[in-house]
């Protein structure tokens, strides 16, 4: 799949989504345009752009050299680190209010340092605790940012 074709899928999907939900909105009249007019126009333009890039992407796939393709093998090979980061961040977000900032951020940092950055266990624990506690003090005490207490009472 070419990069342009990947982009076209994004435009087509969002275009269809926008179109499907825009038609359910009131369109109004020319002298009083309703809330659906602007989104439906944009959805139409997105669908048009998506279709154009889909066709163009197909033509280009046959025409161009290997190097111009999306390089899915390279993407999958490089994908492991970003996906680990996304999964860990999603877990932190889900648990943020329950476990609180201090515990949550320290565990998050530990997981990133140990699993993604591949630091040794003892280093990962040390750095995570120092940065976790330090950042909590800076944000909660110095900048007075409201952070969830969670498991701890502070």
């Amino acid at each position, binding site marked *: 799949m070419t990069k342009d074709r990947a982009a076209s899928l994004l435009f087509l999907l*969002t275009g269809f989504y926008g179109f499907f939900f825009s038609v359910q909105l*009131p369109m109004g009249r020319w002298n009083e*345009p309703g809330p659906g007019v*602007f989104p439906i126009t944009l959805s139409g333009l*997105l669908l048009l752009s998506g279709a154009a890039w889909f066709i163009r992407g197909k033509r280009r796939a046959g025409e161009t050299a290997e190097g111009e393709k999306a390089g899915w093998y390279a993407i999958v090979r490089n994908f492991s680190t970003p996906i680990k980061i996304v999964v860990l961040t999603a877990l932190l977000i889900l648990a943020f209010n329950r476990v609180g900032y201090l515990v949550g951020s320290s565990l998050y940092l530990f997981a*990133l340092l140990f699993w993604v950055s591949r630091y040794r266990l003892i280093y990962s624990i040390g750095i995570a605790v120092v*940065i976790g506690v330090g950042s909590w003090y800076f944000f909660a005490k110095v*900048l007075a940012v*409201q952070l969830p207490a969670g498991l701890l009472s502070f």
Partner: protein
Amino acid sequence: MDVFGNLASGFQTALTLQNVYLCFIGCLWGTMVGVLPGIGPLAGITLLIPVTFGLDATGAIIMLAGIYYGAMYGGSTTSILMNVPGESASVVTCLDGYQMTLKGRGGAALFIAAWGSWVGGTLSIVGLMVLAPTLANFAMKFGPPEMFSVLLIAFILLGSLGSGSFFRTMPMVFLGLLIGTIGMDPLTGSLRFTHNVTDLYDGIGLLPVAMGAMGIGEILIATEESLLRVIHKVKLRELWPTRDELRASWAPIFRGSGIGFVIGLLPGSAHILSSFVSYMAEKRLAKRPEEFGRGRIEGVAGPESANNAATGSAMIPFLSLGIPTGPAPAVMMIALLIHGITPGPLFISKHPDVFWGLIASMYIGNVMLIVLNLPLVGIFISLLRIPFRILFPVILLICLVGTYSVNTSTFELGVLLSFGVLGYFIRKIKYDMAPLILATIIGPTMELSLRQSLMRSDGSFSIFWESPITMTLIAVSILLLVWNVYRGLRPTKASWEKALEEGK
């Protein structure tokens, strides 16, 4: 009050101990994010937004603007010494700057880059100081049709001048405008794309969108790359350029400042474009253009002056019209909105202390940056020794706290992560995220002005031909649109040759 009187009161505001400190912090952080590859000025600004919550609006904008222009100074350092652009506007500086380092003239290149940045930055502040109030006064006459026309031409210019092609940029603009429609319709109160999620009733949070798309997206990409860092050391005495180098630099510095100032007014990646245009202009004017790319001082002086001049002029449309022309001014606009201040035609008259305080702080900041970037260059370079595998978890944590602290909402953290993933995907397929962010921010104003215009004209589009301003803007927009469509669709020389060969 005249310009000088206003400026004097601005200096009174900017020279308070707190604001000098904030300006210094902004410039310092800006230089740091400029030096560190993988963190641009945009990520640098978004990361410090939470820090501004406890400050007044003047202090907040002084600090954030310091990051913006400070990053332009810092970006040249790694370009010259390591052949690694600290931020995108310094890509061109690598060409001749690094070659000068290899020849043992890296110190002189750093000096000229800093000096050019100072001249470009200072001249653009003079322009900002004179032009912004004039433009704001003019824009006060704007009604919804004029505002719609200005925004229309801004988006078409964004498509024409952005880092991608017109046909690649415009879908990103449409996507951003569509995202901007999420939430309650301001005219009728209808809910759009909210799916009964109460967090979306007020629209999608601009900060998580910008911070996710640019900050998290940038980090996800950066974790894929490993940089081979070869640092050339520069001694203080090597900073002084020779008389010939100084003589060769002054004209490119002034030309670059002019080019940067004009291009900075246009929407798109102005600071990147300005440095490229300046480099091309210097190459074209040179007696021996073949020497460019082999260590010509003009190849450093012009682009570095241009990208700094562009940062000052990019503030003009943002402060006087409320139209950010790039992602960094857009994020600064979000910060001002969080502080209850809306940039636009009334901004300067309603908040003169903020505007003139900012202008004065920019003069002060430019002087601070000269000091930070010349004698202390070694300290900034040593920042590159901090392993990125420690740095990125800290940056991620700051992004999360920054987003959470606005509304103490974990939903917004979800938006942050989703836009981070989207930003990563968009970068992978070589599209530009900046138009999407700009469109998300400006989109609601554009829709509102279009609908208000049609309501005022009883549904007639002729309202856009009634005033000379709208007529000119719409006509130029149509011409630009036609030109871009023609340019994108016309057969290229290569395709003609291929067709002819197939026909043989």
